[in-house]
C-alpha cells in the first residue's frame, strides 16, 4: 500500500489518490475539536451563526490533550474515538470540512457522507499520546476556551503518522484488513458479526 506525505490543506486531487490502508504523514494546520465543541458547532449552525473557525477545506483532529508541562508545546495528544462524533459529521462536511483524524472506525452513514462529499478520514493509533505529541509543533486555543481540554485548538502537525481509514471512494480499512487475518478454523461455528457499533 502507498505511503503519502501530505501538506495541509487537502486538495481534491490529493484526496482522490488516497486509498483505505495507505500510510500517511500529515504536515500543516488542523483544528482540534471533540464532543463538546462539536455540539456547539452544530448548535451554532442551527442558529445560522458563523463558526468561530472557518472549517471550509480544513481537517479536524479529534483530540483532547493533557495539559502541557512548563516549556512544552503540548502534553499527551493521541486521537479519541471518531464514531462518537459521527452524528455531527454530515453537517460539518456540508460546510466544507475536508478531512478528520481520529481513532477506530466510522458508522456506515458517516462513511457514506465522507464518500458523497469527497472527503477522507484518517485513523491515527489510539493510546499513542506521548509519541504523537512529538509531531505537534504548535498549539493555540482559538475558541470555546471555557471547555478546557475540549476547547478548539489550532495545531500545526509535522509528519504526523496515520492511515487512511475511510477514503473518498467508499474504501474502508477494517473491511480490507479483518477478512485477511480471520481464522475460521479456530472460530468454529461462531458466525461473524459484521456490524461495528458504538457501545453495547
Amino acid at each position, binding site marked *: 500500500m502507498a505511503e503519502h506525505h501530505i501538506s495541509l490543506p487537502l486538495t481534491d486531487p490529493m484526496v482522490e489518490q488516497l486509498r483505505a490502508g495507505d500510510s500517511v504523514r500529515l504536515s500543516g494546520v488542523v483544528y482540534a475539536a471533540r464532543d463538546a465543541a462539536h455540539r456547539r458547532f452544530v448548535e451554532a449552525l442551527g442558529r445560522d451563526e458563523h463558526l468561530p473557525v472557518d472549517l471550509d477545506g480544513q481537517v479536524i483532529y479529534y483530540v483532547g490533550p*493533557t495539559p502541557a508541562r512548563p516549556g512544552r508545546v503540548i502534553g*499527551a*495528544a493521541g486521537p479519541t474515538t471518531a464514531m462518537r462524533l459521527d452524528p455531527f459529521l454530515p453537517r460539518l462536511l456540508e460546510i466544507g470540512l475536508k478531512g478528520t483524524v481520529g481513532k477506530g*472506525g466510522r458508522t456506515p452513514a458517516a462513511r457514506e457522507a465522507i464518500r458523497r462529499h469527497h472527503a477522507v478520514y484518517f485513523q491515527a*493509533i489510539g493510546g499513542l*499520546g*506521548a509519541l504523537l505529541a512529538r509531531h505537534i509543533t504548535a498549539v493555540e486555543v482559538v475558541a470555546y476556551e471555557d471547555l478546557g481540554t475540549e476547547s478548539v485548538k489550532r495545531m500545526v502537525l509535522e509528519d504526523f503518522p496515520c492511515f487512511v481509514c475511510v477514503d473518498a471512494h467508499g474504501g474502508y480499512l477494517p473491511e480490507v484488513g479483518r477478512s485477511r487475518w480471520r481464522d475460521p478454523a479456530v472460530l468454529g461455528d461462531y458466525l461473524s*458479526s*459484521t456490524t461495528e457499533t458504538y457501545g453495547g
Partner: protein
Amino acid sequence: MTRPPREVDVTRIEETVARLCQEAAHVLPDDVYAALRQAASSEQAPLAREVLTQILENAVVARQEMIPLCQDTGTTVVFLEIGQDVHLVGGDVHAAVNGGVARGYAEGYLRASIVDHPITSRVNTRDNTPAVIHTELVPGDRVRVIVVPKGGGCENMSRFRVMLPAAGAGGIRELVLRTVEESGGNPCPPLIVGVGVGGTAEHAMYLAKRAILRPAGEHHPDPEVAAFERELLAQVNATGVGPQNVGGMTTALAVNVEVFPTHIASLPVAINLQCHSARQKSAEI
C-alpha cells in the same frame, strides 16, 4: 488477648493516591509491556506489526519524557482493600482519596475528564474528581491502594447480559466475540478482555473490572476456567480485528474470566474491556 487496631491516617492514603495517579499515567506495567513485545514478535500482519512497534515506542517515550501514555488519563477507579484490623483516622477516607486524585492530576499535568452531571450540565469538574471508589474489607492490618486510570474509549464498550443458564459456555463465548468484533478499534486493541460471570448484575460487572487487573499471562487458578480463558483468547485473536482494527492476529493480550456462584435461574455475564494502555499502580500502607 486482642490487639488494638492499627491506626492509619487518611492523609497517607491521600498522598499515596496522588503518587499512584502520576506513576500509573506515565509507566506501563511490566507485564503489559512484555505481553506487547511478545505480540509484536509473533504478529504476521505488516500493518499490525507497525502498530505494535509504535505502541512499544510510545511506552518508552512516555516514561523517559514524563508525558502521559495516553491523553485520556481516565476515570480514576480506586480500589481500597482495607484490613479489618485497621482503624482509619484523620478524616473521611473518601475525601482523602478524592483529595489525592485532585492533587495527583494537577501535579502530574494529567487531563481532567470528569463532568459533574451525566445527564444535564456535563460541566468539567476540572480536577478529575470524584473518583470511583471500591472498598473491600480483607484480613490483616494493612491498606492496599490500587489506582486504575480507566479510559473512556474502552469503558464505553462494556456489555452486560443475563443469559439463560442453558446458554452456558457457548453463550458466553458468543457475547465475548461479538463484543470484540462490534467494538472494532474503539476500545484500542490489543485488549485485555475482562469477563465476570455469576453473582448478580452489579457483582458480575465488578468481577469483570477486577478481571482486567490480573497480570497479563496469568490464568485463573481453576484449571477449567483457565482452559476456557485460553480458548477464548485464541478465538478473539482469530477474529482478525488486530491492533487498532487494522487487521491482524493480535486482537487481545489476555482474556481473564472471574466467576462467582449464582442463582439457580441465572447466568449473568459482564464484559469490561481494557485498552493496550492497561494502566494500574498499587501500593500498601
